């Protein structure tokens, strides 16, 4: 018997993204091909420390903001 995990809808920087229910942040970032090294994440306006990414599970409707370093003066 196959186990199906349900899919939830979250928002990443304003864009709708589907991901498996109960996925953690690290997994989401990996799916999105985001370099883990230079990224900062805010979940529903609260910054999530890097050390907490593995333990942070996503729920439907979550708003994720991803920031990275870019060129600027």
């Amino acid at each position: 018997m196959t186990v199906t995990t349900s899919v939830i809808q979250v928002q990443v920087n304003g864009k709708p993204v589907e991901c498996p229910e109960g996925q953690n942040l690290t997994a989401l970032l990996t799916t999105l091909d985001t370099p883990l090294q230079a990224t900062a994440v805010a979940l529903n306006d609260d910054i999530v420390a890097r050390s907490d990414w593995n333990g942070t599970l996503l729920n439907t409707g979550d708003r994720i903001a991803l920031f990275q370093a870019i060129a600027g003066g």
Partner: protein
Amino acid sequence: MLTIADKTFSSRLYTGTGKYANSQTMAESIIASGSELVTMALKRVDIDNRDDDILAPLLAAGVNLLPNTSGAKNAKEAVFAAKLAREALGTNWLKLEIHPDPKYLMPDPIETLAAAEELVREGFIVLPYCHADPVLCKRLEEVGCAAVMPLGAPIGSNKGLASRDFLEIIIDQARVPVIVDAGIGAPSHAAEAMEMGADAVLVNTAIAAAADPLAMGKAFKLAVESGRMAYEAGLAGTVNHAIASSPLTAFLDQTT
């Protein structure tokens, strides 16, 4: 050698990362400039349209990172940006910049002072970008900023040290390093700032927008070294006052 907070630098030229054609040119120009501290911004990732990765070449070059809060319009946003930057880059060094005015990019003194105070409390090494206002610089110093970064002229204007009279006062009164940031358009401007006694300068547009950024990076390196050397060697000074009128000390010859 210049010490700011927990770091010591042999180069007094700091650089920005903006306005380069690509990140390879950026990295090569920064290396040519000898800069050991580089500032960069933070922005939301566009997952469909990735920006050039600037971090890998910079880390390979071995420079220190100074994330900035450009984009923040008030203290609250700046503090948020600072925490994001700390998470993203793993450094508590921060260039605090708040410019609610998108046209001239003038730094907001009130929001900057408020943000600086909070960020220092949260353990950041704060380098605030501000106008060349001597009193503001003393206030920023008092709330614990590790240096002050008064502007020479508006960002990107390349006008040089329009604020030189005020920079002199700031340099005279400061008890933390003074880094002239913004407006430096030519190596001669950088040399002038160093000759005046500034501890360092931050240059971005002048190098990135030059026809040959690598060569310009090197030119700035030499200018900053030369300006500092001149300052340490003791400049000869110019004659400022006309010697005039009747003798003031003749009365001393009558005594004794």
